[in-house]
């Protein structure tokens, strides 16, 4: 018998909150220190950046695929929109980074809205292919616009996405999404995944919530795109193809569709695995494919299922709430 989770209102517990903030501050300062003193060499820094970007991508895709149950395969397209939008702001119009980030989020959210409204009417498999198609359309369109360099893309992007920006972005993403899920909006979203027809009957406007999740997911993908562009110096349409969307999908699936913690852990794990396999290129993709197949067959709920590693979990570990 599953223990039913009674929905207790989560009171604002000052002590716990301070502890969490403390951990975050400590983590931030530690890494910042390592970077400034050069103890963390460039290779690790680059991988850390990739980890942050992948966490944001995985968590945002998880919102759409995992919590709302809508299989979107074009996430890289939103990342591309965000990347290009931010670069136009900072490189072409020479505006500060924050403007670039805001534009990236807005542009990606808009793209999410435009794509979401028509396609979210479709059922599971069709939705997947439609989103895949849109992802590719975005890429092809970008490839043919000379203003943004066409297939050559844009290079020489100043490195503006430093550790503070990365860290802040990851934290904000996690805070927003976790709080969204724990709110009434979140419950509506999950109900759409569980049984769409029943939700409709209960008076929930499923389209509205599907689009909401889609747009928010897209927005954070755009944020990730902006960070990517301002760290890795060059962007080209080819980088944001369906292989990239699949990469993110592997992380979400591995972590567990419906667990934000799972997405975070899987994002870190896959990024590290990719780096570790740098010396074995041929095997890497085969390994990914095998991981995907094995996870789906033997543990389709991924590593974490839909459990989270949050306050309650730590409480349980400490012996409370048995």
């Amino acid at each position, binding site marked *: 018998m599953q223990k039913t989770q009674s929905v207790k209102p989560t009171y604002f517990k000052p002590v716990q909150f301070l502890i969490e903030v403390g951990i975050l501050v400590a983590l931030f300062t530690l890494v910042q220190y390592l970077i400034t003193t050069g103890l963390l060499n460039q290779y690790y820094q680059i991988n850390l950046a990739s980890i942050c970007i992948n966490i944001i991508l995985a968590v945002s895709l998880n919102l759409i695929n995992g919590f709302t149950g809508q299989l979107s395969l074009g996430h890289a397209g939103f990342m591309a929109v965000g990347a290009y939008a931010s670069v136009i702001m900072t490189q072409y119009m020479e505006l500060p980074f924050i403007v670039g980030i805001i534009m990236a989020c807005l542009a990606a959210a808009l793209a999410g809205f435009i794509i979401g409204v028509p396609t979210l009417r479709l059922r599971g*498999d069709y939705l997947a292919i439609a989103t*895949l198609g849109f992802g590719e359309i975005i890429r*092809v369109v970008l490839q043919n616009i000379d203003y943004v360099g066409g297939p050559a893309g844009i290079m020489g992007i100043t490195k503006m996405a430093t550790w503070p920006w990365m860290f802040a972005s990851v934290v904000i993403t996690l805070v927003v999404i976790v709080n969204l899920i724990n709110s009434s909006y979140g419950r509506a979203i999950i109900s759409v995944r569980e049984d769409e027809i029943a939700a409709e009957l209960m008076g929930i406007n499923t389209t509205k919530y599907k689009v909401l999740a889609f747009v928010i997911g897209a927005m954070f993908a755009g944020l990730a795109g902006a960070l990517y562009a301002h760290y890795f110096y060059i962007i080209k349409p080819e980088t944001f193809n369906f292989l990239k969307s699949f990469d993110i999908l592997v992380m979400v699936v591995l972590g567990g569709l419906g667990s934000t913690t799972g997405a975070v852990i899987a994002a870190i794990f896959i990024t590290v695995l990719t780096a570790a396999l740098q010396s074995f290129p041929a095997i890497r993709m085969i390994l990914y494919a095998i991981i*995907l197949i094995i996870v*789906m067959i033997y543990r*389709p709920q991924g590593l974490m299922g839909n459990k989270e590693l949050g306050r309650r979990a730590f409480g349980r570990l400490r012996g409370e709430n048995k």
Partner: protein
Amino acid sequence: MVNGLSLGAIYALIALGYTMVYGIIMLINFAHGDIMMVGAYIGFFSVAVLGTNIFVAMAVAMMACALLGVIIEKVAYKPLRNSTRIAALITAIGVSLFLEYTTIFFLTPNQRVYPAEAFPVTNYHVMGLTLSSKDIFVFISAVVLMIILQYIIKRTKTGKAMRAVSLDKEAAMLMGINVDKTISITFAIGSALAAAAGVMMGIYYNSINPLMGIIPGLKAFVAAVLGGIGIIPGAMVGGFLMGILETLVSGYGSSLYRDAVAFGVLIIILLIKPTGLFGKNTGEKV
């Protein structure tokens, strides 16, 4: 225009595999395009290394891929028959990547060229159109295969079983039909058709490479949806339509947007008539 028909025939063959598999286990087999690629490679080795003629090569490829399809089904899809659709889709993606990258691993990512001697090309000029013997071969073989398929589906017991399982799996089981075996046969036939398409692609375009299955696979899927997924004549019509549309776009519009147009078609279809041209609207009953 002529090329549109030949190209369409190839897409139709691949689309048939998609639609049959979807009709029977409601799965979009992402790996289907890659089975086509494997077929193309087997055909290549058959001709280039073993020196067989093209018909034998096609037969070998078809049999080998039929076997491959059955194996994939047993290993990767059967365990997930009762899981969510997302799970099965993701596994299909995994299989697709596995096929592609294993081929790259063993055979290098470089493309291979079908030896020209495999298929001597002669051009015929008929009524102002240039027909090459390749066009004729592709078109006629495809039509022949489709006729054989229709025969199997409509006239044989296996075909009846396939139709029964796709209508209602549990009822079919209750009627004594061996569902597992039927599903395996469906995969086998679908994969064989894809293999034939692969060999034809090799002849028609002369070169093959490990990643050649992705884009045609997606376009064939669009074709299947266009015709109504799960409906066999629909896949055939859809395939031809896609082929013709693609050639038209390349000719009059810009071939740059050609791939995007394929997806555009898909999206429009899904928005306007998701069940496809021949589809029936079966609303979901609560």
